[in-house]
């Protein structure tokens, strides 16, 4: 996947690039509108991560530009403003998703993959990871033609982990993904453990492999 990161904060840009590059993706980055538009003119991208507040204008300009030249890259907006109007404006002029700062890189990656998949394969597509086949439109999971019933949370978690395969995901990131950032329960991560345990068990029963490894209380890794 070829990715363009338009973000003026260097630290954040580097962090995103590092997290995404390791996958074998190609990541390009720039910090303002002018260079972003030059790059868009020169190359084609699969996805663009777009910050709204840029030094030389609002990121919406790029969305309008893409629309005007008839390009349909996936665009995911990164904004410091959690405002409904900005969100609606962005989505109306062609953005595919909107994520509010601060966010976890794992969340960003899961969202990016989801919009990319939707755009590239339409709604009828199957996600395959090792033996696991996931029918994204039917929300069903089968391993070696055996359908496994997951709860909604387990299913969400599975997709989340597959999107971030090989990465350590912190408990904070998992909690925020599953319960949203409205629910503020930093003191009790125990209930995440319950879900992971169930998911792990169900996958192990069919495949005999343990997909999860726990990383010293900080989080989990899906292999």
């Amino acid at each position: 996947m070829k990715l363009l990161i338009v973000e003026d904060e260097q630290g954040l840009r580097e962090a995103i690039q590092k997290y995404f590059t390791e996958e074998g993706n190609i990541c390009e980055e720039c910090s303002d509108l002018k260079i972003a538009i030059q790059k868009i003119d020169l190359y084609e991208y699969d996805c663009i991560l777009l910050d709204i507040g840029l030094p030389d204008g609002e990121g919406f300009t790029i969305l309008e530009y893409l629309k005007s030249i008839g390009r349909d890259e996936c665009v995911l907006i990164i904004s410091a403003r959690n405002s409904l109007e900005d969100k609606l404006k962005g989505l109306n002029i062609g953005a595919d998703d909107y994520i509010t700062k601060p966010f976890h890189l794992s969340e960003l990656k899961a969202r990016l993959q989801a919009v990319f998949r939707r755009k590239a394969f339409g709604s009828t597509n199957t996600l395959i990871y090792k033996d696991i086949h996931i029918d994204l439109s039917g929300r069903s999971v089968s391993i070696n033609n055996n359908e496994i019933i997951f709860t909604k949370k387990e299913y969400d978690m599975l997709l989340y982990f597959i999107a971030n395969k090989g990465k350590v995901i912190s408990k904070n990131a998992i909690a925020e993904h599953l319960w949203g950032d409205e629910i503020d329960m930093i003191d009790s991560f125990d209930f995440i453990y319950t879900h992971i345990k169930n998911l792990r068990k169900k996958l192990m029963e069919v495949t005999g492999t343990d997909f999860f490894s726990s990383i010293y209380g900080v989080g989990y890794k899906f292999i």
Partner: protein
Amino acid sequence: MKLASHYNRASIIISVSMLIISACIYYVIINHIARKELDDDLSEEVGEFISYVNNNHSLPVAQYDENQTSYIKTNLKSFNTRFYDAPYTNPNHTEIEPGRAVSGLIHFNGENYIFTIVESREETEYLIQIISLVTVILTAILLFVLVVTNMFVLNGLWRPFYNILGFLKSFNISDITIITTKNTKVDEFRDLNDAVSKMSARVTSDYQGLKTFTENASHEMMTPLSVITSKLDNLIQDERLDSDQLKEITDIYSASNKLARLNQSLLILVKIDNDLLQDNETLNLSAVILEKGQQFQEIIKNKKIILSIELDNMEITASKYLIDVMVNNLFSNAIRHNKANGEIKIGMCGRTLVFQNSSDQSELNSELIFNRFYKGKTSDGTGLGLAILKNICSHYCFELTYKYSNGLHIFEIDFN
């Protein structure tokens, strides 16, 4: 009492007393003039009488020229002519009327007589009555006109004042609509109007400036926060980290998470204060509560809390976002400060919502708990949850109260 009434009362008291005094003076003067006129008449009569006696050498008949004349023989050598009030018998009507008399001494045929001439006073009395009546009527009309003009003119004059007062009463610091200046001819009110407009504009702009600052500051903090979070997300990928280092990282995660929440809470407060959330819609509150209850279910189970919900159907018109935040904060508060194996009771009866929770803490100070950043020593929340709740309630004019009874902390919201 209104200023106009005070003024009215004073002006009426003064006018009435002035009118009474002037009426008295008027009466006395008229009376005096009338009497003088009568006395002049009588003096003339006396002259005529004396010349009659001198010419005719006889006393005239008693009824003389409509005046009644009487004589009394006297031995007095001298008698001062005097004028005085006396009854007058009208010969046509044989009625006693008020009259004016003059008595004097006349020397006739070697004898002294005291003569008395009485003249009717009725016409003068009548004149005085007419004049008094006219005066009373004029006074009444004057008073009436005075009251009416005071009422209308004063009210008209004071209208700009009441406009300004009305503006001040409805003044909302977060409202950016500027006072509509109505032209008034009264200098004082124009000055007042100018002063109030300037003051409100300055206050509003200062307040807006402060709010914008808070909003910008909170937004600006989100970017560095996301740098911290994303750097941590990358850092934990390092396989060389040992458990102690990961433990430290977990703490940094928690701190940055808390900071982000704090920031979000401040932004919500700014949004409520600035009335930025106007996406009002009709919501079924019981549905919102049940949905949130579902979301919090695992956390509640995890703490082994018994949740009981008893809801009447109720609809409210408000921002979905704010109501979500409100219910969220009620739940978070009830769960966070609960004890293991505790209970949460949610009830809605009529238009009153009640959240009750058990806790290890005893009664809280209801004056302080809704203050920003007021929190218990053991609480690791932001200290803004209840402040936000309070702000949302006052934003929609819902009444939020805290009570403590039978070991339960009770938060009650009256939606009327």
